[in-house]
Structures are given as C-alpha cells and as structure tokens.
C-alpha cells in the first residue's frame, strides 16, 4: 500500500502493467523503447538491469515469451500517488509478512475505510468508504462486482484471503476507463484480485499447499493447483477450509465488576472452492471463466447480554457464482470487454428458543442474480479515451420473511440498467477523468403494490495535475455523485419494510496532494498523500422509530468532513536487508445535520474522529519481521454522545515472523504471528468484544 517497490520480471505480469514485454531480450538486457514512455508510465529512478544466468524458463502466460530470469530494480510510482482518485493497495506479500489474517483486517489498514467488525472469524464485517455507509461500497471480485440485493451490503467476512493476490481500495472508483458501469456506480470500491497461475522450474503445473492454525481452535488448510493446457490455456483450482471454535476470552466490564468471560456460540466451519480458466486467443483476446462456491455453518453469538449468555442462533449460507470476462481488441482504437455472471445465494438463519411456536424459528432466503455487462472503449488518439458501458441485471429473492402484512410472499424481482459514459484525457501533466452514469430500476412483487421505478443521472469528474516535471508531485480533485437503491430488506422486510423509500443520495468531494520521491541512497523511496474531503448523504435510509414500531424511512442527512493521510518509506539497511514503514491517519467529523433529528449536530455512532494504522516490515536474509498497529479514538455506540455510550480508544498491535526456505525445487514459507500482542480488550461494535492476544502459525509449500 503505497510502497515504492523493487520488482522482478519473473514475479508475475500484473506487477509490470506498463512495461513492453517484447522489448526484453532473451539475453536479459532490458532495452527501453522510449524513455518518455517509461516516465509517462510512472517508472521513476534509474533502472539497473541485470541478469542472472539460469536455465529455468518461467512461463508467465502463453502469449508472453518465456523469459530467462531478468531482474529489474527500480521504483514505480505508488498507485496512490499518480491516479486521479485516491487509491491504495496491498499485495499478497505485504499482507502475508505483516500478518494480515482476513480481507476485513486488510481493509482496516486503508485510510478512509470504516470496517464494522462484529468480532471473531464468523462475525459480520462490512466496509464503508469514509463512513458514507457500507451500502455505498462495491466489492469487486476478479473484475465483476458482487451483489447482495437483499441486504444491500457485502459481508467481506465470508471472503477468503487465501488466494488473494491484490486488494485495492478506491474512493470514487478506479482510473481505468474500461470498467463496467457497476464499478462506477458506488462511492468506493474494494477490489479483490486473486492469484493467477505462475509456473516455475519448467513444469507445466504448480501446486501449493498451505496450512495455518492458531488460537481458539482455528485451523485453515488450503490447496492450490495450476495446470497449463496446451499453449494458451491455463487452469487453476483452489480449495480451502476453515474451522474455528471461536470461543475466545474477553473481559466484561459491568459497573465495578470485571469478569473474564468466553464468547459463546461463535464456532464456524467454512469451505470455499473455485476453479478458473484463463484462455488467450490468437488475436490476443482473453477469456477468463470462474466458478466459485462457498458454504459455511456458523454460530451467531450476538451481543453479550448481561446475566444471560445463552445463544443458539445459527446461520448456514451458501454462495455460488460463475462468471466470464472476455476482452477483445477490435482495432487499434477500439476494444470491447464483456462480462457475464450468474449468482445464487442461499441462507438459513435458525434460532432455538421457547419464544417461538414449536421452539424453533427458521428464516430462509434465496437470491439469484443474472448479470451481463459490456464496455466499448475508443481511443481516437493517444491520451484521449472514451468508453460506454452498459450493465443489465435481474435480481430475485424468495424468502419466508419478506412478506406483506397479510403474510403473503412478495418474491420481489428487480431489473436494473446502468449506463455509463466515460472520458479519460491525459495531456502534458494533466489527467481528467469524467463519467456520467444513468440508472434505471424497476421492480415487481408477487403480491401487493410495486414500488415506483427509479431513474437517476449521476455525474463524476476527477482531475489530476503533476506540478513538477521532474518530481512526482501531484494535486488532485474529485467530485462524485452516487446513490444507492433501497435493499429488498429496506423495502419489504416483514412489518419494517417501506415500499415508498427513495434512493439514498451521496456526494463526495475530494482534494489532495501526493508526492513520491526515490533515490539510490539509504532511503530508497518516500511517498506521501494527503486528501481533504467533504461528503454528504441525503435521504438516508434508516430504521425510524414510531411508537413501539420501527419502519424504514428516508430520514436523515449527514455530512462527513475529514482528512486522510498516508505515508510510506523504504530504506535499504544492508545488502538484502530492507525496511519498509508505512502509516495512515484519518481525521473525520461525521455529523447528523438534519435539524429535526433527535441527534442533530452529534457525531454519528461508531465513527471515531481519529483513527490510523502503521506497519514496519524488516526484510532480512534470515527471516522477516512485520509489526502492525491499528488504532481508533473514542467513539460512541449511540447517537447520545454521553459517557455511558462511549467506547474507549484502542491500539491493537501484532508482530509476525516469517522465513522462506528453498529446498531443491520446493519453496517453503513458514510464519508465526502474535496478534493483539498487548491483549487489548476492545470493541468495534458495542458488546461485540474483539479477540485479545492470540497466535497464528502457518506453513506454505510450493512445488
């Protein structure tokens, strides 16, 4: 996330997106076709190229010639510096070496995120962009956004980190003009890119096995297999299983009483598998096809209730999707990206309690999504690009709790059309990125009245200007207007749903300055970004209290003002010993600004004014040491900003030791991590305690 990094051509192609591979000679000398191109592409510093003479031929992809090991040292400008929209990323190595254990854990390390974490491996985790709300965050998985029309937000706690190569977080959206319309429709996007096949030692296959285990009965084996089929087809297969009893201790403070308790009913069994086909055709078009399946069975411990620790709620869920992305260059100026996806989600919530008739309650939900998307891009001349994207989707829900007051099933079905026009212009030191998104949504329910159709135009514009010719110092501004559709739960949930809801509207303004500097001295690189922002949300969809009955309502207007700062530096201490340090800080004031609201003028619940994180990574020939710290300042669990509802600030620190061992053709990576090493007792959500000190160890063997 923001580190300038040395890169090696034999690592993987995505690390070198801007390099002309064909200009690398087989003898290992890098011939630069155009220095201007390199500068333009964001490579800075001198590039020292050297080759090591080895006979291995590592195949990257069938359309790229096999390369002898050619190692290029240099620093590319970190992604967060050169783009029009604030964007941060972490790659697999950074996540591994700093002991990141989940996608939610990684997301907490990005400036501007607010992760609601209900604790434990099975606890729900959602990501919000600058506290606009998790409903406004899109989660993209290998190029296509995930959806949950019933809840309206994605629980990233269900997603495995095992096969993730890169996690990036963008405010607004990415700066790529060939995106789907859905990628452009949200206030922010969390993008998950999984690992692509890498072959070593001349084999057309590769195998990786991994096992990790740790405190609270956690065990997580995984298997990854890659196979090259012919010259242009790659296959990958992933499978992983997670088990945890989740019964972690915590300190419960009850007035003057402090007792040591254990989290109850928080066990989980989860299985995830996916298969991928990467096909490259003769005309250099590509087709990637994925099939994904996830199943879990978990206890829902709920809030810690004083004097009553009985909890029998359980959730069984299953997600299946298959998706295909076809990228086709039509001519030198035209290219087409198309996407297809089908998703089926099923969940069974059950609770055992004598308060239910028969002593048992079940809520079953089944969602289906049919999604098609196409983006046509046109680049009339270098530096100017246009695209038009059209996304169509049909979402359906069958549920035994989505009912009218007459208890008849509603079975809602939503058809959505998103159309996006994008213009991307680069001239001299200026970059301009503008979009106009049109949304049309219509809905049908089986019984009762259909909600009104929704139509809306949402513009956005972002500008980035490089201030100095010879130094990557940029200023950037962004404005984006988005809205989120009411979820099926908002509209139809038994008794609480409100079919008259309007979409919730959000506006984002951002202005920032970014800088990157590199040298060949002791300090190899420094990067800094500072963004100030103002957001507001109108017609906020909230559960509104009537007398004894709550109903969903467009009641609320909130604003967020703040600053996000990121800093990173890399130093070379000795030969093969480097130090990477990074830190983020967020200041945020989030206020209810609706005068007739009962919480007018107050900080919104669970929004700290001060938050941040830091990490130190020491890479050495013998082993690596990673240290991380996460902090949040005081915040309140209720709109009453009173001592009774105050959550105390916390600092969570972790340390990770790791080592890579090469045994003939087998690579072994071993790692041990002590998480929350000071045993900080804290909550992100009130009465959902987070785990204290715990231990995770893992071993990964790659053939």
């Amino acid at each position, binding site marked *: 996330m923001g580190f300038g990094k040395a890169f090696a051509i034999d690592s993987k192609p995505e690390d070198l997106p801007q390099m002309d591979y064909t200009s690398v000679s087989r003898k290992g000398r890098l011939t630069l076709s155009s220095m201007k191109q390199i500068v333009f592409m964001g490579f800075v510093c001198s590039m020292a190229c050297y080759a090591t003479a080895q006979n291995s031929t590592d195949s990257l992809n069938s359309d790229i010639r096999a390369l002898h090991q050619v190692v290029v040292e240099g620093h590319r400008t970190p992604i967060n510096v050169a783009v029009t929209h604030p964007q941060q990323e972490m790659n697999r190595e950074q996540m591994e070496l700093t002991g990141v254990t989940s996608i939610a854990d990684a997301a907490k390390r990005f400036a501007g995120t607010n992760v609601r974490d209900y604790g434990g491996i099975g606890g729900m985790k959602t990501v919000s962009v600058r506290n606009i709300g998790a409903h406004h965050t899109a989660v993209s998985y290998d190029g296509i956004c995930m959806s949950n029309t019933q809840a309206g937000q994605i629980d990233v706690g269900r997603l495995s980190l095992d096969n993730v190569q890169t996690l990036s977080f963008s405010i607004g959206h990415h700066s790529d003009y060939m995106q789907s319309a859905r990628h452009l429709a949200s206030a922010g996007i969390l993008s998950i890119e999984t690992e692509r096949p890498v072959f070593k030692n001349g084999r057309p296959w590769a195998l990786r096995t991994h096992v990790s285990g740790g405190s609270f009965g956690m065990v997580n084996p995984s298997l990854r297999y890659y196979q090259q089929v012919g010259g242009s087809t790659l296959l990958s297969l992933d499978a992983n299983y997670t088990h945890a009893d989740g019964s972690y201790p915590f300190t419960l403070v009850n007035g003057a009483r402090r007792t040591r308790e254990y989290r109850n009913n928080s066990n989980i069994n989860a299985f995830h598998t996916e298969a991928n086909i990467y096909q490259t055709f003769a005309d250099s078009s590509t087709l990637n096809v994925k099939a994904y399946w996830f199943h879990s069975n978990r206890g829902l411990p709920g809030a810690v209730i004083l004097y009553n620790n009985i909890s029998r709620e359980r959730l069984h869920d299953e997600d299946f999707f298959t998706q295909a992305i076809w990228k086709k260059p039509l001519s030198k100026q035209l290219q087409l990206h198309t996407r297809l996806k089908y998703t089926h989600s099923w969940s069974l919530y059950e609770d055992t309690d004598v308060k239910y008739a028969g002593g048992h309650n079940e809520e079953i939900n089944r969602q289906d999504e049919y999604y098609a998307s196409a983006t046509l891009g046109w680049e009339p001349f270098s530096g100017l690009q246009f695209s038009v994207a059209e996304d169509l989707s049909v979402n359906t829900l069958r549920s035994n709790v989505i009912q009218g007051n007459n208890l008849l099933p509603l079975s809602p079905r939503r058809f959505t059309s998103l159309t996006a026009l994008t213009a991307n212009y680069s001239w001299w030191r200026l970059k301009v990125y503008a979009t106009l998104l049109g949304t049309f949504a219509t809905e049908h329910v089986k019984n009762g009245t259909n909600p009104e159709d929704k139509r809306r135009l949402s513009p956005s514009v972002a500008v980035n200007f490089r201030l100095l010719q010879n130094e990557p110092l940029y200023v950037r501004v962004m404005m984006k207007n988005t809205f989120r559709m009411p979820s099926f739960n908002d509209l139809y949930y038994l008794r609480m749903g409100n079919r008259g809801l309007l979409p919730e509207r959000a506006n984002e303004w951002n202005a920032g300055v970014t800088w990157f500097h590199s040298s060949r001295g002791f300090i190899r690189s420094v990067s800094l970004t500072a963004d100030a922002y103002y957001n507001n949300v109108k017609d906020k969809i909230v559960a509104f209290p009537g007398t004894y009955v709550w109903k969903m309502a467009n009641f609320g207007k909130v604003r967020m003002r703040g600053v996000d700062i990121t800093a990173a530096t890399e130093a070379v201490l000795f030969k093969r010993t480097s130090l990477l340090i990074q830190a983020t800080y967020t200041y945020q004031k989030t206020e209810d600004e609706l005068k007739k609201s009962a919480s007018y003028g107050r900080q919104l619940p669970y929004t700290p004014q001060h938050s941040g994180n830091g990490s130190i990574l020491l890479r050495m020939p013998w082993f690596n040491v990673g240290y991380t710290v996460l902090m949040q300042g005081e915040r309140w669990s209720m709109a*009453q900003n009173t001592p009774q509802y105050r959550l105390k600030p916390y600092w969570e620190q972790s340390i990770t030791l790791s080592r890579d061992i090469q045994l003939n053709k087998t690579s072994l990576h071993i790692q041990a991590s002590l998480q929350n090493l000071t045993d900080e007792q804290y909550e992100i959500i009130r009465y959902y305690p987070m785990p204290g000190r715990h231990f995770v160890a893992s071993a990964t063997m790659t053939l």
Partner: protein
Amino acid sequence: MKIRSFIFGALSMLALAAGFTSCSDDDNDDISKPNVELAKTRAFVLDEGNKGNNNAGITYFDWTEDATFSSDLFVAQNKHQLGDVGQDIIADANGNIYVIVSVSRYITKLDKNCVEKATLQMPEELGDPRYGVLDGENLYVTCYGGYIARINTKTMKVTGKVAIGQNPEYIIKENGSLYCTNSGWGSDNRVAKVEIPAFEAVSYYDVMYNPDRIIAVNGHIFVQGYDYDYSYPWGELKSDGTFLNKGQASAWAAYGNTLYLAYSETNWSTYATTTKFYTYDVENGTLNEASPLKNAPEELATASVYSMNVNPYTGDLYITTSDFVNNGKIYHFASDGSFIKKFDSTGLNSRKILFLND
C-alpha cells in the same frame, strides 16, 4: 482440640439459627445501608433501554420535588448494571421491589432503597420474563415460552407454572384470577384467564390481533393491542367474554374511575408523530375526547408517549416520552390536569414509574 471443635460448632449453630430467625421476619427489616439516601416519597422509573445494549436502568426522583438523582440509581446502589431490556417494576406491601429484566432473563429483588437482595435467573424452558403481578407472597410472571410462572418472593424460587398460550405480555389480577394477553406476535390473539387458587384451569377470550396491554379498573377489564396495521385498538373485555372495541390508544393509566389514554401516531410520509390525550369514564362508559391536560408543553403533542403513570398517593399524572435516541422526558401533571414540571429521565425509553411512600 475437642473443646475447640465443640465451641466452634456451637457458635456455627448459633449463627445459623440467627440467620434463620432473621429470614423468618418480614424482609422489610433486611435493609442495607444504601450508597444513596432516598426520600420517603420516592419514585423509581424503569428505563427499558434498547435491546442488545444492556442499558436498562432506574431513574430515581422524590415525587414531592420532582428532583432526580443524577445517574442510574441501580448502578449507584449496587455498582453493577441492571441488564438488557427492563420490562416491569413492581413493589410489594413490605416495600420490596421486583424488577423484571426481560432479555437478561432474570428477576431481581431490591429493598426499598433499590439495593439488590436476591436474583432469580429464569429457567430456559420458561423463556424471557415479561410482566408481573403480586398476590400475597407470590409473584406471577408472564414468560415468553408461553407460561405464567409463580415465584415465591421470599425464596425467589419458581414454585409453579401454567401453560397459557404464545408469547404472553401484560398480566393483571382481578377477582381472584390472573388475566394476561397472549400476543403470539399475531398468532394467538387471546386473553388467558387462570384462577389463582388452582393455578391450572385456563379459559380464553378472543380479542384483537396481537394484544399487548391489559388493565383492570373498578371491576372492568380493558385490553389494548397492535392490530395488523399498528392502529393500536383498545376496548373492554366484558364479563360475558365478548370484546367491545372502544378506540385507539398506545398508552394508558387509571386512577379512580378514570382511564387516561394517549394515542401517538406516526405519519410515515412526513415522519411526524402526533399524540392525542383523552379520557374514558369507566363507570358511565363514556369517552371524553377532550384532553385532560392543561397548559401542557407544546412538544408533548408531537412526542411519542412511552408510558402514562398515576401516583396513587396524589392522583398526579406522569407521562414519559421517548425519541428513541435520547434519555426520556417526564412530564408531571397535577390530578386536575394542570402542568407542573418537566424533567429528564437518566435512561432511554422510560417504561413505568413506581411510587412509594413509607
């Protein structure tokens, strides 16, 4: 050695005997020295809190002055929290107080100063306790598992239970029988009657969809509920078992022959709540649509009334309101309806006020 053992044994027996003796007296004598001294004319407001936040509490005030203690009295006296969802608060003739904490699933017995003396964790098979009524030394409590549980208030043990239907809510004692509303969250919709001596025979009366409150006034029984559309109907359960609808009400309280009613209605287009106050003369069976309140603060007409309470020693009316975000407000009216004072509760969603005078 033997002599020492003998003396120790004798002293132990003496201490045990003393203990039994003290237990056999009225509990009234067993008063702890409180951390906070309370007035003789004291009132306890049970603040329900909201589910999952363990923020139930007790607001204390002296009802002659309307002066509240600055924080949760239960915490001040006991140094720990009351728990999750305070549902009901009841006092016996000896000044002992019983608080039903529904989601925490227990009942706590307090002395007159609000100092905890004993607790009863409700068995899981009975479910969450909801509301209670006293009869002699027995406390009858509705439980969400579909029971009325009988609890001996001296031993704080469950001594009996009777299955009465689904999800019972409020309970009253009238003419030697218990009556409770079986909400079933819309699937039972009856009032159940249990004769106290037998504590087993059950008879039922059909009322509205999803009934909630029940109250007895001068031999008349009234029932209020939610109905399908949350229109809050209320009416009289006649002695012949028929139910006669009377109007709409979301809160009520009785004094003498008068039933005070409030109906808070939320407009789901404007999100504005309006509250109407009126009375019902139980003896004559007549509704008086005019508000019994005089010089009431303007905001009361647009607030959600959470409870209405009458001080039995004065006939004064106390109305609590909630905006579901901030601590509750308490409005004090004299028995003739004239406004006296408005003051803050120290907790959220003030469900009931208990008045004592000893």
